[in-house]
């Protein structure tokens, strides 16, 4: 084999523990700044690419398909959409088991190619279906801070 010697006793086997000890602060960017400022007012912004004829939600400064600049083409897209796909997740992001599973969905905002990966609320998992119309439920205005979490969840439109 490739090594002249190997561990002969399991008690000789050792490892060394360490970590990458960093923290991060991410500015939300030029498009994000516009998007989240509007979100504080309970509005959802998209960005329209006229050459590809599609609307990005969340908005971007560029169209990823044709590279047109989309700044100046931001528009309100409403707060309603449909469930594009959904799941019920029993695991935390740390890999441990969740006590209360969350319903996570991809929500396509009506009239756009984009939307959100967000939670569904005020609904039982068994009642969710693909194509279900939903709307954004925002936090109380005083609690909004310009974050994706200013939307509490999406709920079915009755």
């Amino acid at each position, binding site marked *: 084999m*490739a*090594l*002249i*010697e*190997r*561990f002969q006793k399991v008690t*000789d*086997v*050792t*490892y*060394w*523990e*360490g*970590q*990458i*000890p*960093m*923290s*991060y*602060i*991410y*500015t*939300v960017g*030029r498009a*994000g*700044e516009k998007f*989240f*400022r509007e979100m504080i007012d309970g509005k959802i912004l998209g960005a329209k690419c006229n050459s590809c004829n599609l609307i990005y939600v969340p908005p971007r400064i560029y169209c990823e398909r044709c590279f047109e600049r989309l700044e100046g083409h931001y528009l309100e897209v409403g707060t309603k959409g449909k469930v594009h796909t959904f799941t019920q997740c029993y695991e935390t992001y*740390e890999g441990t088991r969740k006590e209360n599973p969350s319903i996570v969905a991809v929500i396509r905002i009506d009239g756009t190619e984009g939307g959100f990966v967000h939670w569904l609320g005020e609904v039982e998992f068994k009642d969710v279906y693909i194509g279900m119309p939903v709307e954004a439920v925002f936090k109380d205005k005083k609690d909004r801070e*310009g*974050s994706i979490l200013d939307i509490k969840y999406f709920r079915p439109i009755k």
Partner: protein
Amino acid sequence: MEITDKMVAKTATKLSAEDIQKGKVLSVKWTPKLKYAWDNGPALGRYLAELKNGRIIAKKCNKCHRILIPPRMFCELCWVPTGEWVYVQDTGIVNTWVISYVDWKASRLDIKGGVRPYTPAVIEIDGATKGMGILHLLNEVDPWKIYRGMKVKAVWKPPEERIGAITDIKYFKPIE
């Protein structure tokens, strides 16, 4: 001239650190937990175990006859498996060094408040092939009096405090 002219156009927006930290622009914070346990393997495993015993061990390449430290299971130059283990001295000479006023986070040490600057060095270990060095710290010496070729010796932690780590050697200090 066209490209240079375009560079003058606004392509990025200048902020100050305060703009971000005090919320003038929106931002998101995150502290990832990135933890590892790296398998030592036979070479570094033995190296660390011997450090716990208060000894430094190297490994010899039977082709180029270099005595390699830190030990490795193969010679990176001859690209053959290495041969026997060789104990080397816990003394050496300073190859090159630094007088550091900053720590790893780029925070400044309180030098005026009496903190001694860090003095890391590449130390060529006696008994290993000339030029074979390791990174470690120097202490018990005036930082400004360190010189190339200065003879140094390891200062070990007491045996009960050693865990099998490079830090079982507290630092190297000059010997006469």
